């Protein structure tokens, strides 16, 4: 309530813009420039909803093909698909496995973020994450037995991964990979590459809220990506906390503690596990959205930052000049880098909220 003056000024400017826009509409009714309907394909993949929207014309099959690519990568990278490359590595009992170039490239990025985060982001969490069930398909979701987590923790540690070219070996045979914290971004990048190769000039990839814009938005304006309000839903709460504007082929990805969780005996358990404890990360961040060139980096960075907490996350993001929007559990919003972020400034009941 303390910065009502600024909000009113914003509203005043918006009013002028709106009046001008109204006049423009009144004077240019129907310019006859009919645009083709975008082609949109949606499928349930990666345990979420994935969609591809192609705006440029004559790209009928591209959206479906991009989703087929997504399904193909899921078969290769899922730890729950029996004959996936990841399952083969996990089941090798410490022996060497040969993987595809793509899986090797993804493991290389996973190791990078393991090192950068000093083990806070760790894809060898598989033995622990297998004990947890955050699936919407499960009734009465419950935290695992602490002694089971204790038993699985010694095999967690990215230094157990030995990667040499296309050859992978888990030094501890009990170590299990889970690429869930990074694979979605990697797959989104591959889909964007495919669309670009096919000559698609304008498209959107949405893998369960992990967004990649491809090319330019039709009409030349920047793409506008809304950030879902990560704070618990309450009466009058905004659907989004704001939006970021981006141009060209970039990733706008989010990690948060609000998306997959369950409540047991009054305790809330979210899906981002701390490799040090095997339990959901104790963090002061409700969500973080990063704008990155590659989505694999966006996913690595945002997942890592949630576990690190706002202070360490902010230092990392600022040192590396990464545009990001961090929302703390107390509602405070922090921006880093040159992120083009516009907060939502009026809440449902018309009152001005206290964000920023």
């Amino acid at each position: 309530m303390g910065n009502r003056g600024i909000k009113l000024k914003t509203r005043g400017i918006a009013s002028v813009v709106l009046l001008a826009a109204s006049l423009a509409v009144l004077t240019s009714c129907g310019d006859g420039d009919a645009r083709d309907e975008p082609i949109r394909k949606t499928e349930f993949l990666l345990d979420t909803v994935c969609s591809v929207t192609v705006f440029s014309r004559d790209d009928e099959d591209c959206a479906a093909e991009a989703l087929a690519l997504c399904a193909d990568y899921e078969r290769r990278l899922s730890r729950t698909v029996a004959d996936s490359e990841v399952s083969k590595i996990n089941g090798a009992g410490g022996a060497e496995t040969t993987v595809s170039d793509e899986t090797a490239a993804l493991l290389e990025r996973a190791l990078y973020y393991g090192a950068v985060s000093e083990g806070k982001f760790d894809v060898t969490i598989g033995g622990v994450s297998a004990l947890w069930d955050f699936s919407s398909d499960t009734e009465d979701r419950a935290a695992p037995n602490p002694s089971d987590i204790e038993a699985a923790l010694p095999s967690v540690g990215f230094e157990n991964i030995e990667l040499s070219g296309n050859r992978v070996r888990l030094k501890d045979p009990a170590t299990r990979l889970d690429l869930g914290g990074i694979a979605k971004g990697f797959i989104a990048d591959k889909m964007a590459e495919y669309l670009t190769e096919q000559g698609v000039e304008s498209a959107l990839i949405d893998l369960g809220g992990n967004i990649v814009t491809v090319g330019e938005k039709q009409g030349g304006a920047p793409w506008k990506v809304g950030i879902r309000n990560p704070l618990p839903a309450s009466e009058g709460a905004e659907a989004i906390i704001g939006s970021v504007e981006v141009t060209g082929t970039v990733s706008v990805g989010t990690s948060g503690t609000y998306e997959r969780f369950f409540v047991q005996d009054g305790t809330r358990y979210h899906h981002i596990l701390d490799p040090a404890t095997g339990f959901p990360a104790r963090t002061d961040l409700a969500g973080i959205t990063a704008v990155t060139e590659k989505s694999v980096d966006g996913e690595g960075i945002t997942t890592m930052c949630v576990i690190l907490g706002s202070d360490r996350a902010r230092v990392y993001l600022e040192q590396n000049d990464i545009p990001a929007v961090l929302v703390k559990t107390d509602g405070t919003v922090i921006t880093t880098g040159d992120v083009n972020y516009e907060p939502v400034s009026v809440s449902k009941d018309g009152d001005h909220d206290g964000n920023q």
Partner: protein
Amino acid sequence: MTEINKPGNPIRRADIILIAALLILATIGAALVSRGGVYADDADVRITVDGALYGVYPIGEAREIVVQGNYENRIVIEAGDADVMQVRVAGATCPGKDCVHHAPIRLGGQSIVCLPNRLSVEITGGERDIDAFTY
């Protein structure tokens, strides 16, 4: 202030009324613009089950839709002015009930998904301010 009521100044009162009317309109508009929202009456609520179209309903008409699939979802469209208009999943028989716990949606392009029932409820059509939503 008494000048306004002088017979020689009838335009002033009209001016004030006009300014007041414009301010009210601009305030309503500004509220919509700053909320990044699209509350056009021509927006629809599009429901799909397992990718197949189940139904399209105008957002301007309050209604309740019960979708039967592997599970049951009860979707409520709360119509009215911009402050009331929203869509939510009011009840479900799915195991996790994540769809019921999902915040109501109001903006063009927003959706609620029930993974166990392979249900998607999305606000489509109308004017679109936001191209995509990240979460």
